[in-house]
């Protein structure tokens, strides 16, 4: 066991695993999780506005419940409960579903704000023209609501990126998971965890620059 604080050979030893495989898994989790969140979030937002009281209330309850409780516990929940229903997903898939579900509730809120920002005159004009409701949504409202909320959704993707390490508790070797694994194996944590920290900083900072560019192009709804 070495007494030095920092060992460069060890650093280069763990670098490929943490940055190579770890990064790949982190990106996969973020991308797939975001896709689920964006799509499911829109579904939630639309259900929430249903004129059928039961539908909108139940949707609200589900959204609030998921939003107000820890993602970590939800990950555990799905991981332990899926097998009871005969569902055998691998850890990464379960994690992605948990991420997607959790962030869908945030996205639903974002979509809601975007939809409500569409001027009421647009709804009235569509009514005056007797446009069918579904068509009003598809051709008038959503094309105006969604571009404006993309920066906010982008910010949530960045948050999701930083929460993917939670998946290490179910054995997923994302950047942090790989770092932890390497560290435990060699009883040296300094180098792997530092790599992980810097890597996340770089990723999230570049992603936030991207979102800020998107904001300038499209305008924002908070």
């Amino acid at each position, binding site marked *: 066991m070495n007494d030095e604080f920092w060992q460069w050979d060890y650093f280069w030893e763990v670098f490929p695993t943490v940055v190579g495989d770890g990064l790949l898994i982190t990106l996969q989790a973020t991308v797939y999780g975001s896709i689920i969140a964006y799509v499911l979030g829109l579904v939630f937002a639309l259900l929430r506005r249903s004129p059928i009281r039961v539908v909108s209330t139940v949707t609200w309850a589900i959204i609030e419940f998921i939003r107000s409780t820890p993602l970590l516990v939800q990950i555990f929940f799905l991981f332990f409960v899926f097998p009871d229903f005969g569902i055998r997903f691998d850890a990464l898939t379960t994690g992605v579903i948990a991420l997607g579900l959790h962030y869908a509730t945030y996205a639903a809120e974002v979509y809601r704000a975007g939809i409500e920002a569409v001027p009421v005159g647009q709804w*009235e004009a569509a009514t005056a023209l007797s446009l069918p409701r579904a068509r009003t949504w598809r051709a008038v409202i959503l094309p105006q609501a969604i571009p404006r909320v993309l920066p906010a959704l982008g910010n949530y993707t960045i948050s999701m990126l930083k929460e993917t390490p939670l998946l290490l508790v179910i054995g997923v070797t994302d950047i942090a998971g790989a770092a932890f694994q390497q560290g435990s194996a060699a009883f040296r944590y300094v180098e792997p965890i530092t790599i992980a920290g810097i890597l996340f900083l770089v990723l999230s900072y570049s992603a936030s620059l991207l979102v800020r560019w998107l904001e300038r192009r499209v305008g924002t709804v908070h």
Partner: protein
Amino acid sequence: MIRFEDVVKRFGDHVVLDGLNFTVAPGEFVTLIGPSGSGKTTILRLLMTLEQVSSGTIHVGDECLSHVRRGEKLVPADEKHQRQVRKRIGMVFQQFNLFPNMKVLQNLTEAPIRALGLSRAEAEERAHELLELVGLSDKVNAHPTQLSGGQQQRVAIARALAMRPDVLLLDEVTSALDPELVAGVLALLKDIANTTDITFLCVTHEMGFARDVSDRVMMFDNGHVLEDAPPDKLFSEPDHQRTRDFLSAVLERG
């Protein structure tokens, strides 16, 4: 063509329309004038089903807009029925309300295709005709944001006409326009009124226009029809003091 019977409209505790009765004959051009809050715009919104009556009935043509008959009783009409009756009514808004994510052509063809079932070719042909009518044929592929206020409103008029309505509602359609653009839009409306047999219900502050084009003018105050007369009579010899006061205040502004 239009018949309001004992219509009451309440917003919470505030009664905007209190037992309103009036009719409009087919092809008539009726202008509603009066101070803000007197209920004029509410009448248009009721006809366009943007609001529902608190009580009373509204008829359009020979159909009832606000209610359906279920056996012996009259019950409030559901959305499907209202959408059916409403197809004969068009509306032009103060804020134009063009769809910014569509070009002018699509703004005009969207509803005829989706609500009237026209083919794309038919809808586009109709759109071109109407654009020529309003004098904007060259803007067919422009975006609403590239047009001036007056041009946008003319497109909005064309869009409403594309549905071949029997009734056209005009809600202060020139109030949001720069003064120099107002005349163009009003001239267009006068032209349409004279060459078609569309029934018009118009809310406006443009007294000159009202006098020039209307068959009848109705003066509103506090949810009631104060006076209902042809423009010559109402503008030169109003019966009520309130009408007199209102007219002199408005006409002074010029």
